[in-house]
């Protein structure tokens, strides 16, 4: 006897939409077991993890703050993933966006004006785009695998940020702490939207990006070409769509949005450059993109869920003394269940004897 995966005649469309919910449900069940095994009251732990953060205005604001960089990064990645362009380096593009946007704020020190914030946003986006263009050019010119190059460039950017904040850009009045000056609170920061919370105007960037990417993918010829390039590269070549253009465009969009995410982090929540500006948003965004079915609206909901995991993990650490690694475990579980449900939507498991249907 052996287990076999057999394609289903028709994949249920309804189940396609339900599968992220099923995956979320299964993650909750797994969490229940996990908390029990750790000797905590599962109900209390689950409440602390998933409900408690949502019971206060402050918590809700935190949810939106953490979802913002995830939405931005995941939207950009989803465009590339649809076009079969595997940008794994959103974290690096985010970092470079933060460096460029932050760099403008530091350069303007003493001469700030109303123009500063727009200039920082533009610099952040351009920085991310430029950094994203590197793997794209390497792929188009030398056929270098973009998964490897974009991933490796992430570490380069993080080291570079470390060099800047400990070296040339270190705050001269900062007692040798590895961080830059604080950006100007009036002109060099994203304004706070809700008194008493940290919610900043970066959420508007995220919402605008959802709409723009939605229109791009569903209404424009460029979006169509990206989609064709991803689903059937030969058809794209036959019809005369340039795959190199798709690669470059995907990386520019992905890099630009990740750069915006980095800028929104440093100009919104953090207020300066420091060695660590992201708890891995750029990598978590890969999960978010797939969890959201590579669809802009799906990405928005998946980002909120992922954001809740970050906050819930912190909440568990504070209230129940659980390690922060719980967040990573949940991200992994969630991705596992999403991919698992996806496979079972398209295939069913059959039991067959090993001798049947031997292939030649």
């Amino acid at each position, binding site marked *: 006897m052996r287990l076999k995966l*057999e*394609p*289903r*005649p*028709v994949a249920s469309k309804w189940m396609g939409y339900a599968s992220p919910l099923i995956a979320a449900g299964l993650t909750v069940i797994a969490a229940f077991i996990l908390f029990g095994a750790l000797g905590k009251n599962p109900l209390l732990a689950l409440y602390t993890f998933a409900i408690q953060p949502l019971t206060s205005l402050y918590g809700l604001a935190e949810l939106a703050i953490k979802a913002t960089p995830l939405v931005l990064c995941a939207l950009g990645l989803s465009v590339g993933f649809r076009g079969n362009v595997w940008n794994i380096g959103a974290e690096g593009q985010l970092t470079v966006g933060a460096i460029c946007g932050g760099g403008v704020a530091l350069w303007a020190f003493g001469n700030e004006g109303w123009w500063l914030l727009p200039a920082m946003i533009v610099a952040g986006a351009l920085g991310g785009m430029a950094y994203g263009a590197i793997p794209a050019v390497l792929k188009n010119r030398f056929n270098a695998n973009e998964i490897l190059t974009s991933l490796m460039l992430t570490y380069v950017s993080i080291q570079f940020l470390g060099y800047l904040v400990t070296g040339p850009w270190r705050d001269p009045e900062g007692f040798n702490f590895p961080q830059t000056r604080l950006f100007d609170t009036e002109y060099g920061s994203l304004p706070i939207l809700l008194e008493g919370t940290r919610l900043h105007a970066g959420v508007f960037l995220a919402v605008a990006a959802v709409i723009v990417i939605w229109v791009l993918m569903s*209404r*424009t*010829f*460029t979006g*169509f070409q990206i*989609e*064709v390039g991803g*689903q*059937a590269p*030969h*058809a794209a*070549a*036959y*019809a*005369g*769509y*340039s795959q190199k253009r798709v690669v470059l465009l995907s990386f520019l969009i992905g890099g630009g949005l990740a750069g915006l995410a980095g800028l929104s982090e440093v100009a919104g929540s953090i207020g300066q450059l420091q060695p660590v500006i992201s708890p891995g948003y750029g990598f978590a965004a890969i999960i978010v993109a797939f969890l959201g079915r590579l669809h802009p609206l799906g990405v928005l909901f998946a980002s909120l869920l992922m954001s809740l995991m970050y906050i819930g993990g912190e909440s568990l650490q504070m209230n129940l003394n659980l390690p922060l690694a719980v967040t990573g475990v949940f991200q992994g579980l969630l991705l596992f269940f999403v991919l698992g449900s996806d496979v079972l939507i398209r295939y069913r498991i059959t039991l067959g004897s090993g*001798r*049947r*249907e*031997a*292939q*030649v």
Partner: protein
Amino acid sequence: MADRQTPQLELSGITKAYPGTLANDNVDLTVLPGEIHALLGENGAGKSTLVKIIYGVVKADAGEMRWLGDRVTVNNPSEARALGIGMVFQHFNLFETLTVAENISLGLDEPHDIKTLSGEIITISERYGLPLNPARHVHALSVAERQRVEIIRCLVQNPKLLIMDEPTSVLTPQEVDSLFGTLRQLSKEGCSILYISHKLDEIQSLCDAATVLRMGKVTARCTPARETPRSLAEMMIGSALPTCKRASRAGKSETVFSLNGLSMVSSDPHGTDLKDITLELGRGEIVAIAGVTGNGQKEFLCALNGEQATADARMIEMLGEPIGKLGPKDRRMRGMAFVPEERLGRGAVPEMSLAMNALLTGYLRNLVRRGFTRTGHIRSFARDIREAFKVKAPDIDVEAKSLSGGNLQKFIIGREIMLDPKVLVLGFPTWGVDVGAAAAIHQAIIDLAARGTAILIVSEDLDELFEICDRIAVIAEGRLSPSKSTRTTNIEEVGMWMSGAFETGGHAHAS
């Protein structure tokens, strides 16, 4: 043949369901010893599934198989070979880097000494008129020689039943004749042959009996010699055969498209380089490029479409303008259209709707404005294609892959024709398409030519090419033969050309 012989092979009630389709539905089949039995049917009729069941590759859901009267179950190909069943697949399973003898030894179930095996190969190849040197490497062999390797691989095991799946699709007419000689000799020596094909004239000249399948069911049994190609075709498609009409063309017309010494190195290291191809296409003319698959057709189509630019722009000219360096989009803008050899994945995106597939190459036909797609225009364009070319699809929102091969091909050809091209290039337009759809496609091509479009058809189906084309040329090993009017040449001459026997005059081509 004696009448009350014990059948070599007897199948009864064979049923096999795949998700969504019933590939074989209660099929009975009897093959007598020494009989050449045709299994006839359109693509998707269930022929391949049935022979895979016989050869043990696929297990039937129901039904039984008798071998010389005894009930047997065949669980895998090696059990089939042990019984005495050999099979030559349509797609060869050979290792290019190994020699003929090594390849054959790999197909044997018991260990063999290569030297004795080589001797055996030579004996068999002489006895059955299958010239083959066992020491040669497979990558250096022609397609016909590779097929001989597959046949000899079966023959060294002394089969009692040899299954041949569409063996002639890769052969020139002369090679087909010599293959038939071999098969007749085998049959005289008592080996049964189950011959799968949809080429009716072959079945008539070769086979003693025929079983016709349609949509998984046996619909007729007959003696091919007593039928006509037309009656066989009607058994196969289950209805009267449509015919197409071609009005005779008057005189010469202005040249709209020309290839001037087109040479190109293939981007695929195992591909065929194009060498000095010269050809002219007149307004309203249909020109055929015949040839055995793998002689540069793929590269030729790539060069024409613009997926690979030529070294000199003047190698391809349209209306006197050099276009060799232009990409597919620029060539389309000048009035070219293409139907590629692969339908799913090249001519159409399998998982997109028909409407979106209409946009795939219809984008130059006001379906896009300022970068935005115009849903209404796209949908009405797709609907027009579906109606004008009688594409059987419930609506234009179904995925391209859900259509049958013939219907999808009608959609793709329809889309390209609706673009109203000045030059239309078609690669293997009716490959794997059922007889009814093929006739509709031929008629559409003829009608387009009557409106003045110059048409170039690359195909290996000589009957088709002779039926609808004005002139015919042959591509062999990347070179193009001179072209001749289809009225002044015949299948034999074209067959000679297909094996490479022609003078290329370079630029001095016959007109």
